[in-house]
């Protein structure tokens, strides 16, 4: 489930993930049976360069934890192995690191499956099994390699609460998480949390000490099981989503005006996002009364077994193509609808993304890039119009007009573009009269032969004009002067 929630996004800024540049510490502890399941993961990754998008980016190393599950697979966090160029895993007590590879990676729920091709690796290991949601106040143990140690570390704590929380890896997704008070530190990421010998979670994120004390988060088994089921068909399809926003319905006058009983049931639909699952089925102003037959409380929770959980939990457990049944009240009349579920594409723009090369087009020394969260994190543009278009892309349904936001992201200064320097971060509207809705439109427009290339930008008033002859004359000069190895990546 994707949640548009700026309040929680704000909080995310202060969250950290347990991923650490290796610090080596020596130790001689004796390890228990868990030693046959735990692995230490070293990852060499390469961060894409959104400022010079033709460059391959900076290489860095990191360290995390993982554990062996059935089918010779290793489960860990997506953020431990994101943008990986080279991976090794080492078993507890076995000094030899073995090359490993990512089989499936799910950035929306921060989980990944690895395997090791060396057939001897899994010999003598024990595949861990999964348990359920541990009870509040029950004790759990966290295993892993915090702050870079070579030997496994165990910490213990109790389950503090079960809640929906944002997953900071993507920055846009919220799923069920379990908060525990065991010490969890960088390097614990991807390590198992055990109760009665079964995995009840994967340690993955927390707060730094100056924000909160003894607060660590693990990914609970419903999320893990969903991931493992999703990839059974050989590919990961991502979470599905209703793609609508809803509001609690506490106000007695609002309840009466909407024709509802005073029974604390129902939430008000605020927006239905175009291109999402509910478009054309649910309307703004509808009241959601039940989901798959489970009554929805006015605080947007449902009762699932013993637990009160957010209504999204029903959708959380479903897969692409599944349906969800909604009981709604529209204009005072009860109505039942079925919503076939799919992944919500416009949200991707505001998620952190990984394992992707930045896309761009360079023409006449002008760099054009599509704007996404990675771009915004790299550039931090102050341009108000760009900030508006990015921040309100979903809320104001701007994706209908432009599925991608294309900006002039930079200028490789050259006589050909000597007067185009003032327009950095301006959104490209048209090139030679052709509407620019995607990066491919930019490449296409520049491929067409014309004497002048007229680039119309939002809010700048005057267009940028490039003469074809001047662009051609400048091309090799710009490429060699700036070390540009390729002119586009679409």
């Amino acid at each position, binding site marked *: 489930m994707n949640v548009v929630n700026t309040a929680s996004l704000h909080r995310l800024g202060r969250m950290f993930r347990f991923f650490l540049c290796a610090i080596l510490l020596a130790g001689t502890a004796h390890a228990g049976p868990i030693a046959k399941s735990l692995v230490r993961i070293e990852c060499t990754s390469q961060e894409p360069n959104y400022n010079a998008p033709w460059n391959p980016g900076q290489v860095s190393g990191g360290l995390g934890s993982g554990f062996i599950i059935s089918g010779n697979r290793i489960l860990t966090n997506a953020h431990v192995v994101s943008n990986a160029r080279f991976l090794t895993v080492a078993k507890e007590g076995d000094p030899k690191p073995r090359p490993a590879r990512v089989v499936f990676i799910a950035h929306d729920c921060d989980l990944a499956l690895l395997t090791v091709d060396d057939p001897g690796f899994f010999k003598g290991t024990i595949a861990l099994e999964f348990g359920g949601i541990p009870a509040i106040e029950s004790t759990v143990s966290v295993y892993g390699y915090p702050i870079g140690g070579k030997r496994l570390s165990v910490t213990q704590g109790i389950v503090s609460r079960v809640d929906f929380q944002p997953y900071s890896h993507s920055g846009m997704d919220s799923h069920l998480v379990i908060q525990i008070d065991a010490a969890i530190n960088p390097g614990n990421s991807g390590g198992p949390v055990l109760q009665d010998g079964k995995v009840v979670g994967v340690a993955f994120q927390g707060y730094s000490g100056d924000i909160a004390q003894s607060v660590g988060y693990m990914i609970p088994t419903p999320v893990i099981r969903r991931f493992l089921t999703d990839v059974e068909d050989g590919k990961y399809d991502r979470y599905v989503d209703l793609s609508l926003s809803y509001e609690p319905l506490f106000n007695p006058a609002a309840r009466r005006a909407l024709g509802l009983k005073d029974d604390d049931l129902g939430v008000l639909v605020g927006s239905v996002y175009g291109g999402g699952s509910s478009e054309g089925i649910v309307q*703004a102003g509808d009241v959601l009364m039940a989901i798959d037959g489970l009554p929805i409380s006015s605080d947007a929770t449902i009762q699932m077994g013993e637990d009160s959980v957010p209504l999204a939990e029903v959708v959380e457990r479903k897969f692409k193509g599944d349906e969800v049944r909604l009981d709604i009240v529209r204009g005072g009349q009860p109505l039942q609808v079925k919503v076939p579920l799919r992944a919500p594409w416009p949200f991707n723009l505001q998620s952190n993304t990984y394992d992707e090369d930045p896309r761009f087009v360079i023409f006449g020394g002008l760099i054009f890039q599509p704007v996404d969260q990675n771009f915004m994190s790299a550039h931090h543009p102050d341009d108000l119009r760009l900030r508006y278009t990015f921040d309100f892309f979903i809320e104001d349904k701007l994706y209908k007009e432009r599925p991608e936001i294309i900006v002039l992201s930079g200028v490789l200064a050259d006589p050909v573009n000597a007067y185009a320097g003032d327009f950095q971060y301006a959104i490209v509207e048209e090139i030679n009269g052709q509407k620019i809705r995607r990066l491919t439109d930019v490449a296409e427009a520049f491929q067409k032969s014309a004497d002048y290339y007229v680039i119309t930008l939002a809010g700048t008033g005057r267009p940028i004009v490039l003469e074809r002859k001047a662009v051609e004359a400048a091309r090799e000069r710009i490429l060699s002067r700036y070390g540009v190895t390729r002119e586009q990546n679409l």
Partner: protein
Amino acid sequence: MSASIPSTPAGRNSCLRRLFQTAIAGIVCLMSNEPVLAGVAAPPKTDKATVAASQSVLRVNSTNQPYDFFRPWTKKAPFSRRGLGTLIAGGRILVTAELVANSTFIELEKAATAAKSAATVERVDYECNLAVLRPADPAFLADMKPMELDSGVRVGDRATILQLEHNGEIAQTVGTVTSIVVGGYPMDNLGLLLFRLSAPMQQRDGSFTLPAVRNGRLLGLLMRYDARSQTADIISAPVIEHFLKEVNKAAYGGFARVGLIFTMTRDPQLRRYIGLKEPGGVYLSEVLPGSSAQKAGLKKGDVILAVGGKTIDQDGNYEDEAFGRISFSHLTNTMSFPGDTVPFRIFREGNILEIPVKLESRDPSKVVSESYVVDRAPRFVVLGGIVFMELSRPYLQEWGGDWTKKAPQRLVFYDAFQNELPQDRGKIVFISQILPSPDTIGYEDLDNLVVSKVNNRPIRNLDDLAEAIRHPVDGFQKIELEEDPGILFLDAAAIEKNQDHLIKKYALPALQRL
């Protein structure tokens, strides 16, 4: 008119904290009223010019009390600003508008004798940052001599900035005029003529407004000073002359605005593409809706070749006989008056046209989000604890120096792009906050939400809203919003029943002020 100089805040609140904020922005105003240790005083000179100056300047102490836009029914704590006023012809004291913005009490004080008189604002114009004051007792000025204006300054000339020591002596700082430009004035970023002086000034108490003089005549008023670059921006004599001419008219017309934004045409590729063979000219990149330029028929994409018979170069400057190359905005904003007609020579699609533009000053009531709200109370309506306001920049500025990033972003964007809204959009009416009450249960966390309709009536200003809430629908106050949660309902009868309680609990002076 386009102003190419970034707006530089000039001490909205005169306190040291604000001074530090503006220091980061690059330009610092001297204008602290906090007790400040004066630097070592320059030895007082007793030349003729100083004697003349001392007969024309006096202290102006203004107690100011702005409204609190977070609680629009209240004023903030009062504070005082002190500056030097200059006596000009007609028994008027000339000061900057900022000195007396939101004033509750103004006092004139003679430097030598400390004799005091109350004063009132005869006319204030925040666009040009000027005000004229009159003493309650006209005889108060009897022993003083009015100062004349000096419009003849050139780049390279020397000028003197006057300050007052604690002992009443005049301190002089001599500086050089380094440039004469059209630049943004602080309150509204209107582009008007500025004299820029390089002068090593000391920070002294009571320096919010300072006269700059030459040979006993007034060049202008200092309105901001950057301590790092030692640069003083002076409200120029031509702008003061324009202001005073308007003050003397029966109906004050202020400063005209053409209402266009232009860009340079230096780019030879652009010039060839639009077929511009004439030298110079600027590209009209935006014509503001409802402006003089739009009414005259100027269009985006036009190239302005000449204004009022003066040829415009590719940067938008003309050769002024007095001041050299300066922006043509000086011709339209300062040298012309509202109601004047100025011919524009335009290049449009290969043709050259002469278009007369009748200049008008801006009608503030047509502005979507006003850039300043001074000397008057912000409007509001409270309905069952929901506070409605009209968007204005002072509301956003309550978030502090970094308001474009910290204030509610949708409102920031509405303010920034207000010229792009449909012409009949009216004001942006929004819920600024909820005063929790039994009627607003479930709505407590809502704030800064833009209202589209109330009781099925479109809302284009608070008057619409005040009228709409008199007509509940089926016993409900129905409030439709542009964003989530989309719609709110309140019980109309319950609100009426509870309103006395609400007024008492939150100490509201009234449920609305329009």
